[in-house]
């Protein structure tokens, strides 16, 4: 298996993601330069932090264009947490900001509701809405670990392959052709998370 590329663009700690791939026996390397992206068959965009800062960092290093080419070439890409939100068309976080738009979706703040804690933090269930090879050997209702204040609202229900309830029912796993996103942290979701990462690493 060739190594996976994990994009390092200054948005949070990537050690956990590398540890998780090591645990499941798939080599993963940090990718910091645009020229390096083409050398990988599979790319992961992790990250925590602000949406606009993330897009600005990717743009400054021209990683955004390299990632666009990776996706256009039909190669698999997985966005985790903030990385999943970047895949979407637009985010409402601190104004309106454009994402990659590989999947037609809007990133919105959780609406205020009595007794509802934001950020949505902790273990919550993913309900499988559509079959997808990314979900091989994962049961509907499995609990995974979330930390986020903004959620993904897909324009087409087709793209929301798993949903989760937290005041609203939102897309917790999105997929469209070769582009995938997970709102939770698979690297912190123990066995279920390892299975999801293994599935991504071995997609045909």
């Amino acid at each position, binding site marked *: 298996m060739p190594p996976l590329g994990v994009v390092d663009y200054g948005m949070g*700690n990537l*050690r*956990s993601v590398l*540890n*998780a791939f*090591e*645990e499941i026996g798939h080599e993963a390397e940090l990718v910091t330069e645009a020229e390096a992206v083409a050398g990988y068959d599979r790319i992961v965009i992790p990250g*925590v*932090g602000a949406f606009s800062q993330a897009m600005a960092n990717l743009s400054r290093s021209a990683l955004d264009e390299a990632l666009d080419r990776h996706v256009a070439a039909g190669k698999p890409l997985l966005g985790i947490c903030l990385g999943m939100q970047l895949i979407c068309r637009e985010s409402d976080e601190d104004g309106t900001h454009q994402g990659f738009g590989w999947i037609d979706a809007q990133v919105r703040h959780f609406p205020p509701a009595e007794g509802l*804690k934001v*950020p*949505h*933090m*902790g*273990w*919550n*269930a993913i309900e499988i809405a559509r079959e997808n090879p990314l979900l091989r050997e994962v049961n509907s*209702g*499995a*609990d995974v*670990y*979330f*930390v986020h204040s903004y959620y993904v609202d897909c324009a087409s229900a087709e793209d929301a392959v798993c949903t989760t*309830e*937290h005041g609203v029912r939102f897309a917790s796993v999105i997929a469209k052709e070769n582009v995938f996103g997970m709102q939770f942290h698979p*690297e*912190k*979701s*123990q*066995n*279920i*998370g*390892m299975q999801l990462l293994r599935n991504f690493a071995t997609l045909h």
Partner: protein
Amino acid sequence: MVKKRLVAVLILRDGQVVQSIKFKHTNVIHADPVHAMEAFNKWSVDEIVLLNVSREEESRAAFAEAVERVSKHCFVPLAVGGWITEVDYARELLTKGADKLVLNTAFADHPAFVEAASKRFGKQCIVASIDVKRDDAGVAHVAVDRGRRLLEETPAAWAQQVRALGAGEIFFNSVDHDGARKGYDLESVKAIVEAVDLPVIAFGGVFTWSHLLAGIKAGAEAVAAANIFHYTEQATRKAKTFLANAGVPVRSEGQSLAPVRAAG
């Protein structure tokens, strides 16, 4: 619905996992925290808190190394604390695999650092550790500096203060209940839960699984224990199954198949 979490606490002194009784640390449980981590992985604990209770500030580097080694085996959230008073050291711990920073005395002595860390790493990264100690009259005071110095604020007022400084979560402990096997200081847990809308992790004093249940009923989002989890085989599985049987929503992974009775 977000599940109630079961948290295992590893208390490190000079790199070894120690037992904590009223904030005194004498018995070594594990020479190497990685061994404890491996057991908790098998038992599907929901979160790990790793605390450096070494007396010397010079323990920082060795603790960062322990964080790095433990995080390699930790595939659930990892919160770490002890001697964190500056951004550079906070960043080092996060780079080495920590997900959250547990801050205690820093809220009293280095509030500007806490605010800066919260802005930089996000509120979700900042866990305020609040230790409570009761005086002879039974009045609860907030204690900092490993239980040695009392603050003027009530636990409820201090909870509001740490929230204002940028905490995203509260890790509650009681000097009197720590290792005392009589359950959490529920009255103080309740006072804090009612004072702020932050998730509260209850800690200190668990000896039976029903103590965990009492913590949840007092309003805690997560219940933590240390000693009992180390000394009981399959501990966190048994604890989680007990909570599930009592109707508490817990993560499905890690519940054992057979119902278990309350320990103790």
